[in-house]
C-alpha cells in the first residue's frame, strides 16, 4: 500500500530509464544458534547505482552478493544502513522492482502467459498496457507460440526467458537478477545474454545482475562490482568502457579479455589475502 503511493509521488523519471539505487553503509549479520558471535554475511557497503545503469556483482560463493540483492529487493532486512530506490526507502518488495531468480520459479499450474501476467494480477495492474507489453515481450523472447503451454513443456532456457519476461511485464524501474543463467548450458547462456541485452536496450532500466561468471559480467555491464568472501565485502568497482551495443564478436576482443583477466586477478589476489 504505502509503497504504491510513494511510487506515484515519485518525480517522473524519464520513462523506462530506471531509478537510482543508493546503498548507505548497508550490512548484514546473522545471529547463530548457540550464542556464538554473529556471522557477518556482508560488511558495510556504500554504493550508488546510476539510473539506467547495468551493474554486475561477481565474486565467489559466500561473498554476500545474493544477500545484497535480497536487501535491495526488500526480501531481506539489512542489519545496518539504508537502501533507497529513487526516493523510496526499501523496506519491503515493491512492484517497481522486477526480480529474476536462479530458478525460473514459474508456477506449474499456470500457462506461460498466465505466469508472465501473475505479478500484474497480484498487484491488480492488469490493463491494456500490461497486456500489450506481455505480447511484445513474449514476441521478443521468442515465446509467442508457447504462451498457452505449461512450464514443464518448455526447455530450461525457455523457462528462464519466460521468467525474465515475467519480471519485465510490469515495466519495472529496477531489474534484479540473481544468477539467472547459472543453471543453463554455455550456449543457451550466451544466447540469453544477448537476448537480455536486446530487452534492456529496448527499454533501459537500472539492472543489478549477480553472477559468478566474470565474462558474463563484463559482457553485460557498465560496471562490475568485485566481491570477496569471509567476510562478504564489495572490494572494488571496475568500469567496463566497452562500446554498446555489444555483440557476440566482443567475446573474442582483446579489450574484453583484458577486463576479464583484470577482474579475475582482483578476485584471485583477494582470495590469497594480498592487496590488489
Amino acid at each position: 500500500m504505502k509503497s504504491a503511493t510513494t511510487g506515484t509521488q515519485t518525480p517522473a523519471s524519464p520513462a523506462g530509464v530506471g531509478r537510482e539505487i543508493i546503498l548507505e553503509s548497508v550490512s548484514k549479520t546473522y545471529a547463530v544458534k548457540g550464542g556464538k558471535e554473529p556471522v557477518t554475511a556482508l560488511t558495510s557497503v556504500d554504493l550508488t547505482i546510476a539510473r539506467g545503469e547495468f551493474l554486475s556483482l561477481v565474486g565467489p560463493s559466500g561473498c554476500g552478493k545474493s544477500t545484497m540483492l535480497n536487501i535491495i529487493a526488500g526480501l531481506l532486512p539489512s542489519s545496518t544502513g539504508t537502501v533507497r530506490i529513487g526516493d523510496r526507502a526499501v523496506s519491503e518488495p515493491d512492484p517497481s522492482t522486477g526480480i529474476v531468480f536462479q530458478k525460473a520459479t514459474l508456477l506449474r499450474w499456470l500457462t506461460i502467459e498466465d505466469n508472465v501476467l501473475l505479478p500484474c494480477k497480484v498487484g491488480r495492474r492488469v490493463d491494456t498496457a500490461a497486456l500489450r507489453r506481455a505480447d511484445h515481450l513474449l514476441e521478443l523472447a521468442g515465446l509467442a507460440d508457447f504462451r498457452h503451454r505449461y512450464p514443464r513443456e518448455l526447455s530450461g532456457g525457455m523457462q528462464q526467458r519466460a521468467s525474465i519476461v515475467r519480471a519485465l511485464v510490469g515495466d519495472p524501474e529496477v531489474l534484479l537478477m540473481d544468477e539467472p543463467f547459472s543453471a543453463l548450458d554455455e550456449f543457451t547462456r550466451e544466447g540469453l545474454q544477448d537476448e537480455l541485452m536486446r530487452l534492456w536496450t529496448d527499454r533501459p532500466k537500472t539492472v543489478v545482475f549477480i553472477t559468478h561468471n566474470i565474462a558474463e559480467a563484463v559482457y553485460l555491464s557498465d560496471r562490475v562490482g568485485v566481491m570477496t568472501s569471509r567476510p562478504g565485502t564489495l572490494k572494488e568497482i571496475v568500469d567496463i568502457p566497452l562500446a554498446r551495443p555489444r555483440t557476440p564478436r566482443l567475446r573474442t576482443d582483446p579489450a574484453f579479455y583484458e577486463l576479464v583477466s583484470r577482474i579475475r586477478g582482483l578476485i584471485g589476489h583477494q582470495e590469497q589475502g594480498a592487496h590488489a
Partner: protein
Amino acid sequence: MSATTGPQPDTAIPLPDAAPESPKGRRPRGDRPERKPSLALRAGLPAAVGIVLLLLWQFVSANHLVSDLLIPPVDKTWDALRAGLVDGDWWGDISTTLLEMVIGFAIGVVAGLLLGALFAHSPISRIAFYPYVIALQAFPKIAVAPLLVVALGYGMSPKIAVAASLAYFPVMTAAIAGFTEIDADEHNFMRSINASRWQEMRYLRLPNAMSYLFPSFDVALIVALLGAVAAELVGSQNGLGYILVQAQAMGDTAAIFADLIVLALLGVVLQAIIVLVRRLLPQSIVPRR
C-alpha cells in the same frame, strides 16, 4: 507376544532357497527391457483370473466341499443378485447407502480441507489440536456408531456422521502437506511480487495442494463407503448394510454374497469416477507433479 513373534523374522527371512536370484532390485535392467504388456494381456489376464475363481467357486459349492451356509452356490447368488439389481428390490437400499456415502464424503472433504488449511496456516492451532486429531484417528470410530444411532436415530444421519468422520482424515493430512510443502523459491517469488496471504493461498498454496488432494479423495471415498455400511449394520431400516443384517438373520448367504458384490462394484465404480475426473481436469486445476 513380542517374545514369540520377535525371533520369527530373523529365521524366516533367509529361509527361501530362491532368495539369491529373486530380489527384483538386483536384476540388471539391460537384460530385460521393460515392455508394456499388450492390451489383450492387460485385459485378458485379469478376466482369466476372474473366470478361474468363478469356476473354483462353482466347483467348491457344486461338490458341497464347504457348507452352503459359508459359501453359497453360484446360481443362488446370481439369483439374489438378479432379484436385487434387475428386479429392482435393492435399488432403494443402494441409493440410500450411496447417498449416505456421498454426503459423508462431501462433508469429510470439506472438513478435511478446512482443518488442513487451519493447521497449515496456524502452527499454534496445530500444536494445540493435532495430538487430539491423531488420537481420534487411532481410535476406532466405527465403535461410536451405536452411540450415534442412539443420538441421531435410525435414519441416514448417523451413517453420514460415521462416513464423514472416516473420510475427513486422509483429506486433512493431504491438505496439510499440500498447503505447507511449498517450493521455497516459488514462495520467495510470491513474496517478491508482494502477494498478500490470500493471494499466496489462491495462486500458490491451493493449486499446489490440488496435486496432493486428489489421491486422498480415492481413499476418502472408500472409507466413506465403509463407514456408511458399518453404521447401517448397527441399526438401520434400509441400505445395503441393512440388507446384510436381514440376510444374515435369515441365513441367506447367497444374498449376503450378492450384497457384497454390489458393494465391491460400487467402490470400484466410484473410484473410477474420481480417477476419470482427475484425468479430465486441466493441468491448471490438477497440476502434474
